[in-house]
């Protein structure tokens, strides 16, 4: 009966992971291809191990169940256990190294320097919204001071700093240019948040007191959701924003309108 259950389990799980209805969110970034590929490869490796081990457990529990007139066999000879452990260790170690090499080569590549010319945008998380700041023509952000923060100045922008004059602020709406790499500098005002772009395979905690930079390249135009993935308080579940990936011209138009509207 246990065997039957385990066989059913294998069939059920295989079905669950082979169906396409509930799968990774549709992909819209360049590096995401590599994440999905490594995910799939890991799924194949673990899937084979899962099916193999569960079916072995099922087979043994039928084959070696207690039966009248069949005594247990004692087959362990000295030295066998040690050999077994060494061989098993080598095989598992091999699987580990394969998975490590596959993933971590991409990991370090992703953390390398962004391509030159990438747009820089500052992202600030606060309970429970996202602020996006574009540096404007001078390509540099104005100074911010926590003591200047107010309802009308959510980031505490210093009016004395000329670099801040052309900064453009957008709340809960982030626009990016398709096929153009972007550097996001992530900050938080209060507690830890996590900047999650499910379709772009980007997730990075946003930590107060730190400025963390990630870069990526959107590959497909469209409107996507931005979620907070790190528990940040009672409104965590509704800390939602929107990402629009669009062609350069449309992006410029949006940014200009936003700048003029803000004046």
């Amino acid at each position, binding site marked *: 009966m246990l065997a039957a259950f385990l066989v059913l*389990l294998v069939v*059920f799980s295989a079905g*669950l992971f082979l169906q396409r*209805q*509930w799968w*990774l969110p549709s992909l819209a970034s360049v590096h995401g291809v*590599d*994440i999905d590929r490594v*995910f799939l490869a*890991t799924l194949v*490796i*673990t899937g084979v191990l*899962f099916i193999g*081990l*569960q079916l*072995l*457990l099922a087979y*043994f529990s039928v084959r*070696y169940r*207690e039966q009248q007139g069949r005594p*247990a*066999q*004692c*087959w*362990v000879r*000295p030295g066998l256990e040690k050999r077994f*452990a060494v061989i098993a*260790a080598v095989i598992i170690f091999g699987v*580990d190294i394969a*998975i*490590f090499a*596959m*993933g*971590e080569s991409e*990991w370090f590549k*992703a*953390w390398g320097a962004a391509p030159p010319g990438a747009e820089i945008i500052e992202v600030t998380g606060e*309970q429970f919204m996202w602020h996006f700041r574009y540096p404007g023509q001078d390509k540099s952000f104005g100074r911010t001071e*926590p*003591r200047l923060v*107010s309802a009308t100045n959510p980031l*505490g922008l210093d009016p004395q700093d000329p670099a801040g004059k052309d900064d453009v602020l957008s709340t809960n709406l982030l626009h990016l240019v398709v096929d153009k790499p972007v550097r996001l500098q992530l900050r938080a005002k*209060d507690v830890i948040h*996590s900047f*999650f772009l*499910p379709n772009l395979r980007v*997730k990075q905690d946003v*930590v*107060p*007191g*730190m400025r963390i930079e990630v870069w990526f390249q959107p590959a497909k135009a469209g409107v996507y959701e931005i*979620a907070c*993935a790190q*528990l*940040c*308080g*009672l*409104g*965590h*579940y509704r800390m939602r924003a929107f990402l629009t990936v669009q062609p350069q011209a449309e992006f410029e138009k949006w940014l200009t309108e936003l700048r003029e509207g803000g004046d």
Partner: protein
Amino acid sequence: MYLVETGSEHKAGFIRKYVFSTDHKIVGLQYFFTAFAMAIFGGLLSILMRLQLGWPSRMWPMLETIFPVGMAGGVMSPEFYLALQTMHGTIMAIFVLTALFTGAFGNYLIPLQIGARDMAFPLLNMLSYWVYLLSCIVLVLAFFVEGGAPISGWTAYAPLSAIPESGPGQAMGQNLWLVAIALFTVSSMMGVLNYITTIVQARTKGMTMSRVPLNIWGMLSASIISIMVFPVLLGAGVLLLADRIGGTSFFVPAGLVMGDKLIPHSGGHPLLWQHLFWFFGHPEVYIVIVPAMGIAAEIIATFIRKPVFGYRIMAGCWIAVVALSMVVWGHHMFVSGMNPFLGGFFALATLLITVPSAILVLCWVVSLYGARIQFTTPMLFALGFVSIFVTGGLGGFFLGSAWTDIQLHDTYFVVGHFHLTMAMSPLFAAFAGVYYWFPRISGRMMNERLGRVHFWISIAGAYAIFLTMHVMGVGGMLRHSYDTTQYDFLKHLQPLNVFVSFAAFALAASQLIFILNFLVSLFRGPRAEANPWKANTLEWAAPAPIPHGNWGAVTPEVHRWPYDYMVPDGGEDFLPQNAPAAVLENKRF
């Protein structure tokens, strides 16, 4: 041995005998029943959460009478949901599972299985339980203070946990949470010091370390991990409490603004808390799972009716797990803002810990080869443990690799993974242990038929809930979320949430079968034989009922390892550890 022979005839009043008792068996049972009560409480919290997750913001007018604030108008408030989540995690991971294995099973079984009369420090042992009970009470009290229970999760990430203004429950509730954690840590220290000392010092004559039961190896390994990492949690908790009420800034950086109010702290770092917490938090998983493995291995070894495969290898693997468990914590922090090079290191260390874990699994599976498996209820649960541990463990490959963790971090993939590995599989081992040692403790047998029904519903329920959660996580389902239908990209996953909720209700309801079986068997079960499973370990050799001091005039003498089954002399197929040396003494299986 060095323990003073107190004599089993010493008379004590009811209070000294059953309440403030220094007898390890009573302390073990006190731990068991307290942890069990906490498990029911923690389980009910998860049922409330499943109501909200399956049917977000639906009215449950009946519940308003029980929770007039948290469910005002019959609708759950977000802060009440997060409080449930925080308390469910804290209770289950720490106050149930840690206490259940080393506290309950460790206390009851360690002295009996090594032939000792009691723990090395019985008074400290008693104190350990009472501090544990106090910590449970303090924790539950958090629900009843101004603002309610904390909402920062069982990981209590700073600054959310450090600044009272960061949300409801973050004032007095979070303080009580920290005090409860500190008390639990102290209780745990007193316990594990005892277990280690007892195992090292109080073994009976002939009980060498290569002859102790596998369960003892599990308990010893888990105790060593505990004594290394719990003090770090205590230290971190004290620092966080100082940040909250003492004006220090260990975890709070300068310039925080909450509700347009500047927070006066400066100079701390939020990641410091995460490093300290996970330095405890990840080994905590092994503090739970290693003794669970020991119990399962013990039970498998009995019911295969042949010598277990790889005794020394298993012991070696547990020692390897002890060492590696303390260098893998960073895999919880791949996307935390930690230096990516550290992420690479922790990914490698994490993948390496699969080597001893997988060899342990293979030892159990290979042990079945050529066996004569008796499918009793404890054996079913032990094999269920193996199956679930394999499934849960494989999910670790996705999360232990930094690259795939980016997408899966903070999704239900993680929730499904750790519930299979550190909640369901330990729970199955614990059930196996209860069914297995129940006759030893009560002198009666539990009902096998009800036991089987309990097993089948439990394993089907466990897989239905937590495998489905893996798939939801792949779809991006966010954890710690009060209402995931807020997001368009998660809407199509809602049917799965409903399915998981129904499966959770079924799993919870099926535990009533266990409670019924337990209570009825305690009073009405058929009388058990002295050694009903025909096992070799010493606990079955003690008199029934077991007196204070466990053994008669002298402690038993041990002549062999505990797994001499299928002895080919035509008679019984087992040879207890304390049976006098026979002609078979030199036979090596």
